[in-house]
């Protein structure tokens, strides 16, 4: 027998659950189902083909290249974001003149539409007229002049740069907020006990912001791995697959080659990988918590 309160509670979350159920859960299940078919945008007639798409994946060179890039990109980007975010947050904890003004504008890079960010960096990466090349020329490194996104060796690194530009400030302010929530008394006690600055940082600050770190890292692993916009808008996966990542490959399979079944199967693999990550991660943090 449900109390009136319980009923109200359920009613409140119902709209959100319905929207998400219809527009997230249903499409996901449907997407997974399509992965087992040979559905094609331009052809009529769909057949159930079992694991055929997945078997095709195994021998698909470009799939493995994209997977490699996706994983590399995610790992490197999230790690660097964490590192630089930490450094930025530390700087912002200092009570210095101008710091509050700095704090208020630093997140500007996160609010800008990704498409605009890509244009910004594409422009800066242009040979001869882009800001990056102009700077290199001025400081004497003229031989570095090139279209950064067109060079297979550095294009992926450049995409990582884009991710960093957008997200490091977010990490910075998030870590800052978490740092500021650590009671000052901890620091005072440590200082009295004779702990040095580094010691204090390592044993008080880091553990204190642990929760925030977990949240930021988790979210950004998911967001970076699934991120489509940066790579697609900047290079479309090129040059010659140098920046191909899984989401872009899925898009090409569905919207350029029209083979939705195959595209959906790659998407399913992406989901499986992330679920694996999620489970492993939860288990690890649970174990930490218990100990």
């Amino acid at each position, binding site marked *: 027998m449900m109390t009136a309160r319980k009923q109200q*509670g359920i009613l409140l*979350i119902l709209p959100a659950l319905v929207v998400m159920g219809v527009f997230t859960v*249903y499409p996901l299940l449907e997407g997974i189902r399509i992965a087992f078919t040979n559905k094609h945008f331009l052809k009529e007639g769909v057949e159930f083909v079992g694991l055929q798409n997945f078997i095709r994946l195994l021998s698909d060179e470009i799939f493995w290249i994209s997977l490699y890039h996706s994983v590399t990109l995610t790992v490197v980007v999230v790690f660097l974001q964490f590192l630089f975010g930490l450094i930025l947050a530390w700087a912002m904890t200092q009570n210095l003149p101008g710091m509050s003004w700095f704090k208020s504008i630093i997140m500007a890079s996160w609010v800008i539409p990704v498409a605009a960010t890509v244009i910004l960096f594409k422009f800066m990466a242009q040979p001869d007229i882009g800001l990056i090349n102009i700077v290199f020329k001025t400081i004497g490194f003229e031989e570095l002049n090139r279209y950064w996104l067109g060079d297979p060796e550095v294009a992926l690194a450049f995409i990582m740069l884009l991710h960093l530009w957008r997200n490091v400030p977010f990490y910075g302010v998030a870590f800052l907020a978490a740092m500021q929530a650590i009671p000052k008394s901890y620091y005072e006690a440590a200082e009295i006990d004779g702990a040095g600055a580094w010691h204090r940082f390592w044993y008080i600050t880091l553990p204190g912001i642990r*929760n925030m770190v977990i949240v930021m890292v988790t979210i950004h692993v998911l967001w970076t791995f699934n991120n489509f916009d940066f790579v697609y808008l900047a290079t479309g996966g090129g040059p010659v697959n140098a920046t191909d990542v899984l989401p872009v490959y899925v898009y090409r399979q569905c919207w350029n080659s029209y083979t939705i079944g195959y595209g959906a199967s790659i998407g399913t693999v992406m989901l499986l990988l992330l679920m694996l990550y999620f489970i492993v991660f939860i288990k690890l943090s649970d174990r930490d918590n218990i100990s």
Partner: protein
Amino acid sequence: MSKARRKIGVAISAYTIVSISMAFFILPLLWIIYCSFRTQASIFTGKVFASLHEFTLENYTTILSVTDYPTYFMNSFKIATMVSLLALICSIAGAYGLSRFKIKGKNAIILGIFSTQMFPQVLLIIPMYLIVFSLQMLDTVIGVVLGQLILVLPFSIWMLKGYFDNIPVDIDDSARVDGCNIFQRLWHIILPIGAPGIMVAGFFSFVVSWGDYLIVSIISQSQRTATATLVIQRLSSALLIRWGQVAAAAVLTIVPTIILFSFVQKRLVEGLTAGAIKE
């Protein structure tokens, strides 16, 4: 090391980090604004400093008139406000329910909502496109709005729940005892007190919708629903060499988000991170 010397050392390090950050994060924005006012020829010289006569408004006039940018701008605006509105309604209700009420399986629901972040967007849009196409909702505002809603809901709910959790339950309870029903409690208590968090959630939804490319590129086909974000992408790949115009278009797309940002920036951090900081 004396305390004073240590303090100076810390200050120098902090300011160094700040200067590098300013150069890295803010300079590109200033650069593109600067270039949007330069003539084509001026940008092509590759010089950093342009003389006064190389500045012009023609990039903006061309973008605003020939490519009919205002229409797309309004579309972006329409769609983003609708998304924010719907997202706020759903997520305030949802977050309030999750925060205040004992619902069976609450934790599972929360985890479930959070885990939808795992779902690859590119996979979801395939069936979504098929549904929208068969319902003949292609190229309609409502089609785009529904598609973008799923991008913002999970994070909004999670964010707001964390925020509401930090509002003491006693206030609610005393109001309930005083005879307020849910809507009154929401309107008079949660909305005013939770206003900063709600503003941030609305801002987040608006910005995500404004910047969305994938969904709108698939569903939109004409000037009825094409958004500014879609158009600047199209411009940058089509007008490739006319960087002055591309820069102008990009600046026009950035400006609203920056304006909104200035309204919420004081509360942005608080709102975004409320769920992660435990008191």
